[in-house]
């Protein structure tokens, strides 16, 4: 696609429910990143994919968070048993270059509200 596409754009859920957030990167981009931005804060790294493998998962805040990528394209971030502190905007980015020198392009984000 022309840009990074994320869905849903908004998600309201009840505490304890599971949620899935989807990212469709720019066509041909091999690197994919998930970040999180809490209200009024900077961006916090979650996980990095190169192809379908995730060499860096160091930013996932707990074992309730997981992510996968299939076909070297679409990625899904899953949050199990959501908590109120999970409320944030979840941003996905992709990059053409395999190394860390590539320019990142971000989607519009998925805003998650946990009641």
């Amino acid at each position, binding site marked *: 696609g022309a840009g990074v596409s994320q869905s849903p754009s908004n998600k309201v859920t009840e505490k304890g429910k599971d949620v899935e957030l989807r990212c469709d990167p720019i066509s041909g981009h091999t690197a994919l990143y998930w970040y999180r931005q809490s209200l009024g804060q900077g961006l916090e790294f979650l996980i990095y994919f190169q192809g379908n493998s995730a060499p860096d998962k160091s930013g996932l805040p707990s074992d309730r968070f997981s992510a996968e990528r299939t076909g070297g394209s679409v990625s899904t971030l899953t949050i199990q048993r959501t908590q109120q502190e999970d409320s944030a905007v979840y941003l996905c980015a992709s990059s053409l270059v395999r190394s860390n020198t590539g320019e*990142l392009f*971000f989607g519009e984000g998925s805003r998650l509200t946990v009641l």
Partner: protein
Amino acid sequence: GIQVEQSPPDLILQEGANSTLRCNFSDSVNNLQWFHQNPWGQLINLFYIPSGTKQNGRLSATTVATERYSLLYISSSQTTDSGVYFCAAVTGTASKLTFGTGTRLQVTL
């Protein structure tokens, strides 16, 4: 990991004024980007600039890698320039861009 610091944290300008935003980083970088986050939350790429100088319209940026800083210049500011400006950098073999805390810019009429 790398530390990225931005200044000033907040800036209020009258339309037409010029400004300079600064980004300091704690280590040598092989990737540095400037982004503008608009009031709707969208992150817009401004510059990919691990070194050197680039210009795009009223915006320009300079990175002095040896002295570990980057500057973003905004000239003749407009109300549409309002938002948060983020600097982000990668060092060594790290896989991720580390973001600074941003500069919140408000341009008034």
